């Protein structure tokens, strides 16, 4: 099984479309069109739809093999034509076949909510992921590969997103095995990392507030997996592709059934964390309901802001009353905000949006690339600002204001540089990880 890049896939698809424009393919075009139209004669039923698609692809494979346009064509060329056909037909039938039943929508919602709760507190240690595998930049790439799944409509491309995500994880495991002189890890190590990546890859709670406001789709893990299983050519869901697809299906199953015994965590602590996450979720409902307002309304409680399941203290604090201890808290809140901001930029960039419809706070520099500003993962010890008291109090306050209430970023500006925020670019990290 090869992990074909999407660029070669679009080339193949263009080739398919070109052939379909050829006068000699008029009979094929007719069959394809009548096949697509025939779906409107039946009520949507994923099992039946799947059977009809699979039969059609098999029948067309035979037709294309004997077709004058493909006379003398190699096995690859015929195969490419069927891949193109699958993509064409499934793109046309997408709205009918993807997440079409209320049960699917319910399953999507359930796993999405479960992941949302887990995102609040699950750490790699809870899945016994060894520290050597905890490589944030590699994980970020794997998450991004998985997140791309919703950017595609064709089953083949959705499946490729999963395979690419797994490949990134495998490369990480392999690199670790080389550097530590161990044999490459098997499923004992692979599966926990995939579970963690899946939990992290779902849009972050903060982003979801915005996404809900814009009525964007939830992540739909369940529907994506079902869609691939039903509508990817059966002859292609074999071997390695089948293995990694099964892994993600088992991740879905694990997350759905996840309880206090599933994690390396005290059962009581698990219940408490889940409860806290539920409360945070409830707090998020408030801004979602006021959807006529352009900005999510933060919930104020005692000088703190609760939003999207996170809380931001110090909102009404005065500079003079801050203590040295507060700096640590401020820094962690700051990092949290910047991380969320990065994810938000990423998510918003992936959406076909009318800028005018964006909440005011999100306009302007928000849609600039996440890669343009450094990540807030600098060590506190490396930052001058932490060591300075008094004179910097004012600026500490500014940080909170600017990150919470607007999109200004101290570390994007020269100001940020002065304060010692190292401009470690995410891009550079990604390149290093890819080079490995």
């Amino acid at each position, binding site marked *: *099984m090869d*992990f074909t890049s999407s660029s070669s896939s679009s080339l193949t698809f263009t080739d398919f479309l070109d052939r379909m424009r050829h006068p000699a393919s008029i009979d094929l075009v007719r069959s394809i069109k009548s096949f697509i139209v025939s779906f409107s004669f039946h009520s949507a039923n994923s099992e039946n739809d799947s059977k009809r698609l699979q039969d059609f692809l098999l029948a067309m494979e035979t037709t294309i093999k004997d077709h004058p346009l493909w006379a003398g064509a190699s096995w690859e060329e015929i195969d490419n034509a069927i891949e193109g056909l699958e993509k064409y037909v499934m793109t046309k039938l997408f709205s009918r076949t993807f997440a079409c039943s209320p049960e699917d929508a319910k399953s999507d919602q359930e796993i999405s909510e479960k992941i949302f709760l887990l995102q609040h507190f699950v750490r790699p240690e809870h899945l*016994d992921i060894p520290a050597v595998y905890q490589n944030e930049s590699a994980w970020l790439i794997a998450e991004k590969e998985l997140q791309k799944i919703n950017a595609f409509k064709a089953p083949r491309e959705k499946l490729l997103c999963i395979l690419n995500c*797994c*490949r990134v*994880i*495998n*490369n990480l*495991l*392999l690199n670790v*095995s*080389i550097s530590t*002189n*161990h*044999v*490459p*890890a*098997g*499923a*004992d*190590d*692979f*599966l*926990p990392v995939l579970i963690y990546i899946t939990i992290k890859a779902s849009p972050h709670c903060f982003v979801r507030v915005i996404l809900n406001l814009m009525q964007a789709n939830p992540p739909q893990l369940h529907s994506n997996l079902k869609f691939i299983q039903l509508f990817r050519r059966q*002859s292609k869901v074999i*071997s*390695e592709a089948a*293995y*990694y697809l*099964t*892994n993600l*299906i*088992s991740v879905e*199953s*694990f997350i759905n*059934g996840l309880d206090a*015994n*599933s*994690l390396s965590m005290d059962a009581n602590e698990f219940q408490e964390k889940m409860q806290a996450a539920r409360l945070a979720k409830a707090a998020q409902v408030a801004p979602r309901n006021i959807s006529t307002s352009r900005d999510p309304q933060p919930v104020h409680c005692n000088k703190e802001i609760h939003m999207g399941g996170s809380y931001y203290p110090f909102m009404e604090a005065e500079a003079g009353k801050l203590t040295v201890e507060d700096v640590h808290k401020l820094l962690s809140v700051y990092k949290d905000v910047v991380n969320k901001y990065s994810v938000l930029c990423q998510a918003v960039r992936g959406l076909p949006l009318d800028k005018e419809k964006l909440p005011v706070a999100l306009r302007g520099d928000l849609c600039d690339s996440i890669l343009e500003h450094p990540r807030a993962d600098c060590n506190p010890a490396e930052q001058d600002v932490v060591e300075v008291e008094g004179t910097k109090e004012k600026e500490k306050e500014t940080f909170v204001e600017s990150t919470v209430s607007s999109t200004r970023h101290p570390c994007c500006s020269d100001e940020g540089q002065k304060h010692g925020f190292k401009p470690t670019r995410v891009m550079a990290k990604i390149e290093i990880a890819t080079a490995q």
Partner: protein
Amino acid sequence: MGCSASLPDRNTGRLGVLSSENSGVADSKNLRVKLVLLGDSGVGKSCIVLRFVRGQFDPTSKVTVGASFLSQTIALQDSTTVKFEIWDTAGQERYAALAPLYYRGAAVAVVVYDITSPDSFKKAQYWVKELQKHGSPDIIMALVGNKADLQNNREVPVQDAVEYAEKNGMFFIETSAKTADNINELFEEIAKRLPRVSSS
């Protein structure tokens, strides 16, 4: 992950290893076989597979995939080839409920335990029962006692495993992924036991 071997490869007597390219549709001469590995974590499931697929693990070899899925084709004396597609499963207790997703449709299940760990032998018996209940009825099962090089620490007597395997109609072998002992024999024996499709 404690099975990296510094010993030389002993697999020179292999019948013949073909390229593991995806050969497409299997026919009567070229079987494609889904093999699932089950067993407690730490018994050396992936080490066995790596031994089989690569002989000796070579850290410089360019692999694009991980060790959790590997395939290897072997040629048998009757000029048939068998391509094993080996599915590793996570052995930790918390993932036990997921195993059916992996062994569904498998032609072969290799249940591995560690001869120095009675617990892992108990776990192997659990998997055998599970497979008997939920696996395909004609699945070929092999019971493998790994880490046979650690004779001094042996805690699972050979006799116990032989008896258990006989009672359950399984093929039994002790292997050492570390020294490569019996690794090829394991897969060759499985290949021999595969049902042959009558050629048309």
